[in-house]
């Protein structure tokens, strides 16, 4: 099997955009090529596009050929769209990785994005009913996580003593990291008091505990090692391991809301393939759609013991200088969360961290990790990256 490298990455501006989905994909593709001038659109033999709500909010299906056309890409190996809601981008990277590893494709652009802010604000909230089991959970008004994650937060607080302050600290940290990110939605620091006193969304989650609705796109280029050597002069960053686990979808079939077994399974597979343990990870981009999710992710990814995610952030272990720097580019809480774009944004940050050219570098990071959960905590996606030594 061949080795697979990530050799370029770029983003459109993220936020509430005065732009259509295709325009943002063009911006992201251009930024990606500009990130590595040694690779051009003529070098790309495959395109995988990641987007979840394209039919509902951009009224566009058959998206990949449209994006290929708009970026001057003529594919030979693969041209298709991948959807796994909030993990669409990471899923597309896994698909491209598998195709390159096995020899079906050589140089693949993976582009993901979403147009969520439409003239009528309720469109996105309405579409969210389709993201859970529509007929049996969505019909109760259960859209995307606020309600479910608020319950998870309450249960985690009860069971492990996690506090609202500890949750707020995740937001304060990620907002601080995000001020360096010119492409992110929010670039203002917040202090603990602001986070604690913010408007309640669904108790105990307040405004700054929740990521926003975001328009934006991002793109990366993956290549087989042989081609990567000619298409970049930067240190090679490899995809070392992947895992994607789903155990149940409907709320009635969840076994434990505060213990995310699917994430343990997905991450253990990814670590095993990479030949590492959680201790090797010095930088990680995890799915902080809500502050409580980042806390539980520390635990299930093995960065700390189960139940100790709150003290982990409180003691600075997930910040620069701690055990593992988490969401160094600001995460979903700062950058925003255009579903299909998020996993790609995470990959770009890890690539830059491992090449030593991030906005703020984690010292001596050899391995990095990205993680997303999707739906109502129904699926977990993990990728481990490593740089050449």
């Amino acid at each position: 099997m061949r080795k697979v490298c990530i050799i370029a990455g770029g983003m459109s501006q993220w936020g509430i955009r005065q732009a259509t989905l295709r325009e943002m994909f063009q911006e992201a593709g251009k930024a990606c090529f500009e990130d590595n001038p040694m690779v051009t659109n003529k070098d790309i033999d495959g395109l995988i596009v990641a987007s979840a709500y394209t039919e509902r909010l951009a009224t566009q299906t058959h998206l990949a050929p449209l994006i290929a056309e708009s970026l001057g890409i003529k594919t030979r190996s693969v041209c298709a769209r991948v959807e796994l809601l909030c993990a669409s981008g990471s899923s597309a990277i896994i698909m491209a990785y598998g195709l390159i590893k096995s020899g079906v494709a050589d140089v693949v652009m993976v582009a993901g994005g979403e147009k969520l802010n439409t003239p009528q604000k309720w469109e996105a909230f309405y579409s969210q009913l389709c993201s859970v089991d529509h007929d049996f959970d969505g019909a109760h008004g259960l859209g995307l996580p606020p309600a479910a994650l608020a319950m998870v937060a309450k249960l985690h607080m009860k069971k492990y003593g996690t506090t609202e302050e500890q949750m707020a600290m995740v937001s304060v940290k990620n907002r601080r990291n995000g001020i360096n990110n010119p492409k992110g939605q929010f670039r203002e620091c917040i202090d603990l008091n602001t986070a604690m006193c913010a408007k309640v969304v669904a108790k105990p989650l307040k405004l700054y505990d929740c990521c926003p609705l975001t328009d934006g796109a991002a793109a990366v280029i993956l290549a087989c090692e042989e081609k990567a050597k000619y298409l970049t002069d930067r240190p090679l960053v490899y995809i070392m391991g992947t895992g994607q686990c789903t155990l149940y979808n409907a709320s009635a079939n969840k076994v434990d809301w505060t213990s995310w077994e699917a994430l343990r399974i997905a991450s253990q597979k990814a670590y095993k393939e990479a030949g590492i343990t959680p201790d090797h990870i010095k930088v990680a981009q995890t799915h902080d759609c809500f502050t409580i999710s980042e806390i539980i992710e520390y635990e299930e990814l093995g960065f700390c013991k189960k139940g100790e995610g709150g003290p982990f952030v409180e003691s600075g272990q997930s910040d620069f200088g701690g055990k593992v720097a988490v969401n160094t580019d600001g995460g979903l809480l700062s950058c925003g969360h255009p579903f299909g774009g998020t996993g790609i944004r995470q990959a770009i940050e890890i690539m830059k961290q491992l090449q030593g050219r991030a906005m703020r570098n984690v010292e001596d990071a050899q391995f990095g990790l990205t993680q997303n959960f999707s739906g109502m905590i129904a699926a977990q996606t993990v990728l481990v990256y490593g740089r050449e030594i």
Partner: protein
Amino acid sequence: MRGISRLEGKYAVTMDLYPPQGKEFTRIQPFFDNLRQNRFTTTKCKKCGKLSYPPRVICPECLSEDLEWVDLPKEGTVVESVVEEIGVPIGFETPLVLAMVEIPGAFTFIVRIINCKPGALQAGDKVRLSVFEVEPFPAEFGRETVEIARVYFAFEPVDPEKRIN
């Protein structure tokens, strides 16, 4: 010129809050027929004994098609609840009360709580099935358009002190 975005008198399947109903559109119509009789039911596999929720047409465990409809308890216990104050999907009113409810002997799921005094619901409270009519959908059969009546359900507090009647 008037676009269709305002949906005057029209039905758009992409905008539908509730499951399709009527034997022409679903194979689990008994679930909705039973709801109409104030019964909360689901399917159980006669071969392996697996109780499924949501109800199925094929057992997700052993893939048998030999399933039977069984009654579930209509009363459950609140494990945890949440009041959603902003950002609820259109079609639902704020505050939207959702609860994790244990249906004894079956499963724990998230369900909407209606007729509930704001802030009254506590872990340990008993809640019970409450069935209501929802918007019918206009279905085309040949040149005829027929309104298909639909029902759905939520739970409500058992304690009259916590209920808005």
